[in-house]
């Protein structure tokens, strides 16, 4: 068994080595870094699906919230924008939360009947208008100052590592809201509700300019202690190092930076694998699998199924949020337009299912393999398509097929998912 796993990982490693030799090491390492982050996301999804059987389609939302946290925590503050309306904006948000809390309290405390419904409606409607009144003033004040370069509240200027933790916490908070509502109902409802929260998260990030500049993107986010290429190219020690190994300093610096990221992300991944394995083999992990395999029996044994589901749903989302924050830190910018459900929700699902649901190592393997496939087909797709359409005459159809070859990866991954689900539902590395 262990030998088989080793061979599988070696095979995936070989793919990256071949990419490095045939294309370039820069591309290979870039894909590998994204692969490691995808593997962390897959670990989070595996907690939800593999340990507990929860099907969430809102993974993109957790990733995006992680990215947002990087802007809010680690980007530089915009004191002018903050002075224009920061405190008022926070107060209006607090008011919004207070209104919802008041409505919930009214719903819980009052006796059922028309008076209760009326009170709840009145609280919500009046509260909404009061909230909008203060919120609109504050957000407008913030957005009108220096809109070309800032126009948002800015961050706290804290280290990226804190942003990663905040990203995990934000994703966890969103998961709590969804879990509270949709867990305990039919399993499809969770899938539908999470699809919605992900879309809303993205809508907020695209449209609330005071928060993270919306579609104008936030650039120049700080790196998590990783050196910049331009600095390396100036540093004497690096130049002599590049000289010693006989490499061009510019190429060497880009590869060096990616290697630093790889070590960093790899350490996080290994830590998470270790924690996940410990959790899975603890009494808690056994209880989780017992609940997954037979909810009724577990309930009869006195386990609180809904609370445990909520717990693992939040944990999984937090891990995905962490990876989302790390991704944004590495890219150095937040571009809400890049988040798409196909890439950040359903692709992660393919990773988990192909790798082996319920098995942490499987998810990691699936993450690395599918990320490689996804990014390599993007590069190699047009080449393959031009061979495949070799026999066609030059013209509209042929150029259309070659141009849209990048879309081939949707088809490929769909087929892979269906084939694995049918013929090898346990995945490459099955659950023990």
């Amino acid at each position, binding site marked *: 068994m262990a030998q088989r796993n080793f061979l599988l990982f070696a095979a995936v490693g070989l793919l990256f080595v071949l990419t490095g030799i045939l294309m370039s090491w820069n591309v290979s390492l870039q894909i590998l870094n994204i692969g490691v982050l995808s593997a962390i996301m897959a670990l989070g999804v595996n907690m939800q699906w593999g340990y507990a059987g929860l099907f969430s*389609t809102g993974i993109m939302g957790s990733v995006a919230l992680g990215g947002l946290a990087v802007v809010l925590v680690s980007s530089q503050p915009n004191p002018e924008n903050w002075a224009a309306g920061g405190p008022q904006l926070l107060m209006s948000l607090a008011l919004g939360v207070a209104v919802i809390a008041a409505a919930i309290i009214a719903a819980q405390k009052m006796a059922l009947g028309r008076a209760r419904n009326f009170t709840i409606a009145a609280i919500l409607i009046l509260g909404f208008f009061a909230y909008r009144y203060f919120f609109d003033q504050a957000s407008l004040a913030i957005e009108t100052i220096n809109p070309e370069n800032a126009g948002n509240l800015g961050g706290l200027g804290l280290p990226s590592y804190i942003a990663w933790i905040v990203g995990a916490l934000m994703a966890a908070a969103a998961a709590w809201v969804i879990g509270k509502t949709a867990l305990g109902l039919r399993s499809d409802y969770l899938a539908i509700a999470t699809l919605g929260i992900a879309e*809303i998260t993205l809508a907020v990030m*695209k*449209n609330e300019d005071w928060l993270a500049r919306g579609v104008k993107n936030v650039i120049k986010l700080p790196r998590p202690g990783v050196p910049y290429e331009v600095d390396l190219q100036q540093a004497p020690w690096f130049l002599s190092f590049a000289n010693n190994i006989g490499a061009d300093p510019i190429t060497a610096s880009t590869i060096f930076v990616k290697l630093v990221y790889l070590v960093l992300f790899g350490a996080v991944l290994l830590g998470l694998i270790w924690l996940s394995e410990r959790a899975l083999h603890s009494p808690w992990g056994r209880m989780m699998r017992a609940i997954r395999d037979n909810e009724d029996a577990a309930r009869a044994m006195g386990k609180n199924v809904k609370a445990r589901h909520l717990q693992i749903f939040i944990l999984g989302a937090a891990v995905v949020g962490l990876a989302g924050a790390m991704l944004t830190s590495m890219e150095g910018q937040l571009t809400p337009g890049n988040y798409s459900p196909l890439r950040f929700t359903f692709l992660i699902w393919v990773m988990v299912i192909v790798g082996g649901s319920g098995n942490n190592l499987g998810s990691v393997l699936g993450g690395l393999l599918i990320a490689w496939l996804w990014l390599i087909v993007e590069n190699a797709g047009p080449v393959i398509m031009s061979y495949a359409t070799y026999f066609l005459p030059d013209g509209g159809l042929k150029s259309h097929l070659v141009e*849209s070859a990048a879309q081939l990866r949707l088809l490929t991954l*769909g087929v892979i*998912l*269906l084939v694995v*689900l*049918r013929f090898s539902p346990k995945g490459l590395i099955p659950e023990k």
Partner: protein
Amino acid sequence: MDILNALVAFLNFVFVPAFGYGCQLALGALGVTLIFAVLRFSSFAHGDTMAFGTVMAIGFTYVLQANGITFGPLPTALLALPFAILCTALMLLGTDRLVYRFYRKKRVDPIIVTIASVGVMFVMNGINRLIPWGGVEEINFADGSRFLMEAAAFKEMTGLKEGLAIKTTTAVTVVTAALCVAALFWFLQKTRTGKSMRAFSDNEDLALLSGINPERVVQVTWIIVAALATIAGVLYGLDKSYRPFVYFQLLLPIFSAAVVGGLGSPLGAIAGGFVIAFSEVMVTYAWKKVAGYLFPADWLGDGLLQLLSTDYKVAVSFAILLLVLLVKPTGLFKGK
């Protein structure tokens, strides 16, 4: 105070667009709910099924147009519908044979089938984008006359300040949707096959005992779903435009409509479609114009009287979905 103008402005900017959109959502949600009722899973591929049907209809529209065949004032795509439905039905039956039948025979947990539908969604999404006349860009394929009634003509006719414009595509949507729903309910209530479908949906084992052929029920369901999805997709595309990504995103309002109405209940799907469509339009409409006729100008202030910006449409359908899940998880019409 000018109630008539306010009413016309409301009809023109809120009621007519929302009604058309509601019909399109209702047809989409009917498809989702029928799959759920008979096959017992939520199909994530439904948005892309609609897109596939629409691409097929666009292809046949081009063929018809190239041969000089049009439908007079009506969009040519309506003539292309039967062919497109046939293609979509064949595609869905093929998908069932290749993918879903296996899981049905094994009687796996519905959530596994839902995940399989995600795989189908990927494949269909890719196919739609690879089709030569499809691609990823926006396509407008509505032809014929643009308006059934133009705003200027209405103003002249009534002497009101506000105009009421009715697009041909909106009128086509409403009429087609009404015909479809009538045909569907007649089929479900009156025909033998329809009755066996309902029986199968209510209690699979009992239906099997009474000699209903499950494979036939499933096939008929897929054919009806293909018709509904193609019609919903074509109507939406005529009214707005066709773009694969937009169709994929329609999944959320359609699911919301089906859940709000009660998953598995056809009547509920229609009600849910209208609830979602009207809420989306009403919450994101700037009421300034309508209110301007009803109240003195100095009461209103400078705001647009818009509850949420139009970018938050998706949030509206989701908020209603959450509300229904919290208050009445079986939906308005007691789904499953």
